[in-house]
């Protein structure tokens, strides 16, 4: 896949009609420049991207190139600079790639809106007017979600899907609780995606996979202890990483456990839950392995009480390149497996999220349960 061309066109004012005319002339020029006439203009969705400062814009630009190569879109990039004097301006550009196996270039268009100071609040009305009709609108909010912020709220209101990254939460406990409140609000129309949740998918898949095996399935109803070992966020070593909180929230909500109590113990967080008549403890423990990068999960262990003790483990290798599963049923059966583990790039994660159009109720319930657990431990 190659980025073949980028043709910026400056537009002096914010004038939606003029931007559309610029886009039209851009395509006309691109067609004339291409000797073979081998350009395909493709568009499957509107991709709104919000970045909170100019420094991130370059990095985001590369990600947009990669994302639109897989999901051809009209990209509408908002670069906000709250510290700047009030200003707003726009320019249009195209980006072309040659997908593998094709001889023609596939081209998408982009409108970049830069805004500063009080005029940042005007950006949503510009992008709303530039949305292509009948195509889904996806917002990638590349910042900690500012719940209650008007720009955030307006862009969310215009979107069918909102992609955030709870790894960016500056106050994981408060922000997760706030996100839980938004998702629990019936008036929230947009579907939310969380890149942090997407990073959990291989872990969730392996944990769920244990209990796809008919022989092990009854052990899920006999779980009595879940241990999640994680590397805390460097800015607050006492905080639970939002990824491990999401994993705990997922298990809790899927298995219908009710939170009874929460306590801190030697740096760990211990949650006592009830599953019908049974008690379950969920322990979130900072890992002692210094090789595990901050916020990541190191190991998950699920232990069931049965005639023979059973434990199921998923663990990350220290260098992060492999993931290992281990099943132990009593003394006799030990089945171990090692799989390659490739931390997906941000563009790959976003690309995957763009394939999902409906609401992810499992995620929403996991956030609500995680919020409840974090509230309990913080209070």
């Amino acid at each position: 896949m190659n980025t073949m061309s980028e043709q910026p066109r400056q537009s002096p004012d914010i004038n939606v009609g003029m931007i559309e005319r610029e886009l039209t002339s851009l395509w006309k020029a691109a067609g004339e420049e291409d000797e073979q006439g081998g350009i395909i203009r493709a568009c499957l969705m509107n991709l709104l991207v919000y970045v909170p400062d100019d420094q991130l814009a370059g990095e985001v630009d590369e990600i947009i190139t990669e994302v639109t190569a897989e999901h051809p879109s009209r990209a509408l990039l908002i670069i906000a600079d709250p510290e700047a004097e009030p200003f707003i301006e726009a320019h249009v550009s195209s980006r072309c790639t040659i997908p593998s196996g094709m001889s023609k270039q596939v081209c998408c268009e982009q409108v970049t809106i830069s805004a500063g100071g009080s005029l940042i609040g005007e950006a949503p009305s510009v992008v709303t007017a530039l949305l292509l009709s009948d195509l889904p609108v996806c917002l990638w909010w590349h910042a900690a979600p500012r719940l209650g912020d008007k720009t955030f709220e307006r862009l969310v209101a215009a979107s069918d899907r909102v992609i955030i990254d709870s790894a960016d939460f500056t106050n994981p406990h408060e922000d997760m609780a706030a996100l839980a409140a938004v998702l629990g609000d019936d008036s929230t129309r947009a579907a939310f995606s969380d890149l942090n949740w997407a990073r959990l998918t291989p872990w969730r898949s392996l944990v769920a996979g244990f209990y796809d095996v008919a022989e092990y399935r009854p052990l899920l109803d006999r779980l009595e202890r879940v241990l999640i070992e994680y590397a805390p966020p460097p800015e607050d070593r006492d905080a639970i990483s939002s990824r491990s909180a999401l994993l705990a929230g997922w298990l809790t909500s899927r298995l219908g456990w009710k939170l009874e109590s929460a306590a801190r113990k030697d740096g760990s967080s211990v949650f006592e839950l009830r599953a019908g008549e049974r008690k379950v403890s969920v322990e979130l423990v900072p890992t002692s392995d210094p090789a595990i990068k901050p916020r990541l999960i190191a190991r998950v262990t699920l232990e069931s009480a049965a005639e023979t003790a059973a434990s199921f483990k998923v663990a990350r290798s220290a260098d992060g390149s492999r993931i290992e599963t281990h099943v132990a049923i009593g003394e006799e059966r030990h089945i171990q497996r090692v799989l390659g583990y490739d931390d997906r790039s941000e563009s790959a994660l976003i690309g995957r999220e763009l394939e999902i159009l409906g609401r992810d109720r499992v995620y929403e319930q996991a956030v609500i349960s995680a919020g409840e657990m974090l509230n309990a431990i913080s209070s």
Partner: protein
Amino acid sequence: MTSTNDNPLREGVRLERTADPCTVIIFGASGDLTKRKLVPALYRLTQEGLLPAEFAILGFARSKMSHDEFRARMKDAIATYSEAKSVDETVWESFAKGIYYLAGDINNPESYKEMSALLDQIDGERGTAGNRVFYLSTSPTFYSEAVAQLGAAGLARPEGKGWTRIIIEKPFGHSLESARELNVDVAKVFNEDQVYRIDHYLGKETVQNLMVFRFANGIFEPIWNRRYIDHVQITNAESIGVEDRGGYYDTSGVLRDMIQNHVFQVLSHVVMEPPMEFSAGEVRDEKIKAMRAVRPIPRDRVNEFVVRGQYGPGSVGGKSAAGYREEKDVKPESATETYAALKLYFDNWRWAGVPFYLRSAKRMPKRVTEIAIHFKQAPHMLFSETTAQQIEPNVLVVRIQPDEGITMRIGAKVPGQVTRIRWVNMDFRYGASFGVASPEAYERLLLDCILGDATLYARRDMTERGWEIVMPILEAWQEAKPDFPNYEAGSWGPKAADDLLEREGRRWRRP
């Protein structure tokens, strides 16, 4: 069959179900398919987490080999033929622990006793729960024997030991009679719901998309019939010759090798009625119902409906190409066809009077498989005679390979003071719209079998129907010596194939 549907952790949009624990037993494990397709596909499925840890492969073949020797071969195969072209040592070690090998004789009951004991051992070591997929990838001459021996050894329907399925590679028979015999032999041992007859064309993404295209888009179904469609062309062209398969191909020919299975499967997706639901039973019921409506070609009128050809020397893609009779392991006087074109009619309400032109061949100018739906002309011409002469019917083209996609050809006015019409393509390309690579057909098909989904496999009645349609043609050809070669390598086939359409005022589309 065990069910995983009650696992609450599987709920949600992202977690695809992993398959049940099982052992895949490959007959013909020292063969080409095992190393090129099967083991790389199973390795990739494992890496994607779609197969459980409780999974094993048992290779079965005549060659003497230890487990470790077989593992080393498979490691090389994955390094050579997988997309990644490399193997992570630690990951491989874990995968290799589940690979076993048994040297044995397909005809010898003792080999099956050993197999049974080894499978029990694997169940104990790997937790594979007695679930088994037997994959017949040997020479077809051994299929019946292998099936009978599995039955005699109690391996086909073991009681209280999980599920058992069998995948049978193509070719499924050499004639209607041999296909029926094989089906009878298989049915003596396995229930039909245990049998998975593979046709890798059905694993292709675009073939699957054909059903989505027809049945998920409300605008096409109302015009998908004799009222609006003039005729349909299906082209399955290969630019290669017979390569190193000359010995096999010379006893087969394109009608047996491609048309009665792959092309008919594609055709059935075009002509079928909408199924009630997307399930193996419903989809396959509709496909066979449609194919039963094919009007038989009378043996004494084969030449009116069918053209055969064989390539002579020529040039393909800028390189000179030998004629078929000069290929390795091909008889110098061979009468085997490397080109066949058919005209079929369906005697049913939807397709009455609509001709379906099918062609499949080797040594064509390029490799392409496509379905072209040619619509009828607009019923009334508004434009001047000169303009009207520029008007051609609309064509909808579904490309299956390569460059998968859908193109609709429509007429548009050329900007200017006078009315002139130009033909433009509305183009959808998989590669342009979805940047993700499609999974290999074998990955999809193997996973479907392990999950117990036979939708993309051929059912007994469909395999026999394919042979029923082509048998009069093969019998008629047997009686008359062809004037071969009759087309140049690198051309679009014999003139007689052009005449087949031209005498009805039509012509082949140039793909």
